[in-house]
């Protein structure tokens, strides 16, 4: 990355004794801020463990709250060392950042109000679909269904609020997120549970930062041996999903996909 820098990124993190990790602040249960102002969620659970293994103490992490559309920028401009913000691996993104091995599976889900549930993409013709800027949902619909009108928001909160306020007919987002939201919001149904390809969510580092990348991959492998991601699921997602979701359809253990 920075040629004039003698220290490698990993050494620099250790030197500073702090790692800056970009996470979501408004995407429960993956990355959000609780009422005490603490970062919480599936991504955060992993981030804390990574910090502990790297720097010896999980409090040495500095969480940087990002928005969907910011994540690449944050890495590229060096505002964060690592992104753990529900970052789906896509070809475009691969050109901009380096992804480590995945820790989660995802595809798109579409949620709509109970009265007029959308169960097929065709039904969206002529209707308004809410998406988040810079998400896979936005890209999927921009590329595959350019004629569906999209209403775009910067932040998840705004997007889901807009759905509740009836500013659109449905909302497309990662199915993992949609599942959780529906559980807590009566009157809405995930009419389409899997749309597009099965995608993977992975940590991302700055392009060319192979040292940190390799370290993260090794770390994921080691964590797989102790089934860490399942523990993470139990702690952060289970309380929300209950039994409505099969853990195996979400969790990727050890960075390995079958």
């Amino acid at each position, binding site marked *: *990355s*920075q040629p004039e820098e003698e220290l490698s990124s990993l050494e620099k993190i250790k030197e500073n004794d702090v790692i800056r990790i970009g996470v979501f*602040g*408004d995407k*429960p249960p993956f990355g*959000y*801020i*609780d*009422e*005490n*102002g603490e970062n919480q969620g599936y991504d955060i659970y992993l981030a804390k463990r990574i910090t502990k293994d790297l720097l010896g103490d999980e409090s040495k992490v500095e969480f*940087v*709250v*990002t*928005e969907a559309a*910011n994540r690449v*920028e944050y890495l*590229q*401009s*060096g*505002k964060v060392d690592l992104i753990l913000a529900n970052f789906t691996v896509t070809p475009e993104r691969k050109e901009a950042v380096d992804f480590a091995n995945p820790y989660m599976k995802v595809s798109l889900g579409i949620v709509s109000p109970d009265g007029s549930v959308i169960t097929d993409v065709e039904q969206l013709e002529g209707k308004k679909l809410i998406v988040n800027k810079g998400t896979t949902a936005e890209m999927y619909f921009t590329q595959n269904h350019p004629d569906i009108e999209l209403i775009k928001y*910067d*932040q998840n*909160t705004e997007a889901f*609020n807009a759905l509740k306020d009836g500013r659109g007919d449905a909302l497309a987002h990662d199915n993992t997120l949609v599942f959780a939201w529906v559980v*807590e*919001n009566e009157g809405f149904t995930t009419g389409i549970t899997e749309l597009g390809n099965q995608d993977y969510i992975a940590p991302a580092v700055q392009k060319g930062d192979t040292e940190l990348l390799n370290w993260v991959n090794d770390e994921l492998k080691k964590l797989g041996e102790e089934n860490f991601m399942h523990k993470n699921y139990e702690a952060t997602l289970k309380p929300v999903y209950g039994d409505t979701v099969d853990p195996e359809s979400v969790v990727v253990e050890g960075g390995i996909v079958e």
Partner: protein
Amino acid sequence: MQDLGVRVLFQGINMQRLLGGLLITGRIALVSIILSTVLGIAFGLLMLRKNKIINILCRIYLEAIRIIPLLVWLFIFYFGVTKAFRIHLDGEVVCIIVFTLWGTAEMGDIVRGAVTSLPVHQKESGKAIGLTDLQIYRYIIIPQAVRRLVPAAINLATRMIKTTSLAVLIGVIEVLKIGQQIIESSILKTPTASLWVYGFIFFLYFIICYPVTIFSRKLEEKWQS
């Protein structure tokens, strides 16, 4: 349960967090205002120089800052500059840089306006009682220019305070962002949270800016001769 919505402001440490966010907002505003005042006075004096090239350069700077929306400047510095030069700039730092660049331009223009609007005969009657050029500045021009510019400068300060709200759009965790986080985490229990939280922040800005506005108006009335 609308009437209970206001409770969201007092749940947990919400109020503390909001006020903490306000502190960040205030810090950005204060630092920018102080820097703008100092640099703006220098810039204003620079503009008063009778040098063509300096004047043109100052003009270009002033117009460039004025014509491009501040939000665009924030983005240029936050994403463009940091990416182009591969340097890490914190959102708060970017805000301070951009607001200071803006404030300096505006303050400079206020200073220039205050000095040039003084009637010529003030200077001449200073000369006529034998004051040296330096004394004319010290006893006649500066005190009167200050009276003319202080109200405008205070007015600029309130504009800068209001503009800090843009910081949220480049991800600074200030009062508005914290407000959004509170809305997010209480949306299930308190559906009217956004009404109350945004209303409260609206009110916060008002009670900070309004007294300052009143103060500058009073000062203006007092110093108008």
